């Protein structure tokens, strides 16, 4: 049971931190439609994280709630992948991060919707429909920018340099992923094929032999997560037990 709870929390943290990062773009997008698109995606992710936290809270007991899990855990207790907490950078870096993450979610949820746990299966099946839009939207942008102007291409190359080292961690199994037999090798193959196809279309090369950073799944984060939590948890820590 501990493994399932940990795993659900990991999935929830991924979605929440990614959603929180995207929300930083609210009101700052390059054009109104794309600002709205990114905040729509943000909302989907935060919604997914709520279902996952609600489930994790029931599993964890001890009066845990979706709010206490999101707002009262410390940095070392968060299990999200390092990729999700990376700064937004420019539009290109945000897009690439979304594409790399959404593609991972797509194949993971495709698999999880057949999973033996009914609750997780239902959340995955629901989220998958939303993630499909995210993958399509972000991959089209990767191509548009990569195969765009000299400047947009250079920005995508910079984004790859900044983010690629965080992609490996998604496919390195944690203790709970091993216990639950999540087939990360298989999901990696699908992810790899899809990212190669899109980056190829975008005339961008996938870097080889990059040292892959890890740690997020076990709570060892880059310095950025602390800042995200400080901002996100401010209300709940300043006004304990406040509710909507």
């Amino acid at each position, binding site marked *: 049971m501990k493994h399932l709870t940990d795993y659900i929390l990991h999935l929830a943290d991924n979605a929440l931190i990614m*959603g929180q990062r995207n929300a930083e773009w609210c009101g700052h997008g390059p054009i109104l*439609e*794309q600002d*709205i*698109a990114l905040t*729509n*995606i*943000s*909302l*989907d*992710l*935060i*919604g*997914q994280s*709520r*279902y996952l936290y609600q489930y994790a809270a029931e599993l964890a007991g001890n009066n845990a709630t979706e709010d206490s899990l999101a707002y009262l855990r410390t940095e070392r207790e968060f299990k999200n992948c390092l990729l999700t907490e990376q700064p937004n950078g420019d539009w290109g870096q945000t897009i690439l991060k979304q594409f790399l993450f959404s593609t991972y979610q*797509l194949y993971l949820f495709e698999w999880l919707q057949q999973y033996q746990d*009914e609750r997780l*299966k*239902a*959340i995955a*099946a*629901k*989220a998958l*429909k*939303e993630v*499909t*839009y995210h*993958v*399509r*939207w972000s*991959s*089209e942008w990767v*191509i548009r920018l990569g195969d765009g102007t000299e400047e947009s291409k250079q920005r995508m190359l910079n984004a790859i340099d900044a983010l690629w080292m965080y992609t490996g961690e998604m496919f390195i199994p944690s203790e709970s992923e091993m216990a639950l037999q999540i087939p990360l090798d298989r999901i990696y193959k699908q992810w790899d094929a*899809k990212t190669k196809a*899109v980056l190829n*279309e975008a005339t961008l090369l996938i870097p080889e032999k990059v040292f892959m950073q890890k740690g997020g799944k076990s709570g060892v984060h880059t310095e950025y997560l602390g800042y995200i939590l400080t901002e996100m948890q401010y209300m709940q820590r300043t006004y304990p037990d406040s509710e*909507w």
Partner: protein
Amino acid sequence: MKATEQNTSNNTQPSMGAEEVVWGILRSINDPEIPVISIVDLGIVRAVSVEEHHLVKIIITPTYSGCPAHDVIKMTIQLSLLENNIKNFSIEQRLFPAWTTDWISDSGRQKLKAYGIAPPNHTQAVCTPEIFQKEESVQCPHCNSFHTIMISQFGSTACKALYKCEDCKEPFDYFKCH
């Protein structure tokens, strides 16, 4: 038709038709973000049953995971039941099977169109991860032209995309397939 259902809903006798009474109450609750279509027409209400001791059980499903209207809808159901003197109820949220635009009723589709939102096409046009796929052919709710283009897959709410009509030049929301 609605009016008669509304009237009977004041009758608290849990006799036959008690479920119909509850359906009537639910049909009078509109979606907070698209206030012309009821939560029943949207396919959000999945089941209603009246159990022993007049316990009313309602099962609802969210449209999109992050839809901010969902909590409001749940609260409005609670208030409407209380206003109708139904105090013994439970509202369960069910995620599976996932909500689809196929569950929007025909009358719901007509109401969307009359409100200026193009109703969803049938699901063969649902989103796939394939890039730059051919856009759905969406009919303009104002002039009925199919000569329309998508401006953005994401619109004013999670469930809508932004379109523009090339004939009457009006922009409009499309309730996208899901």
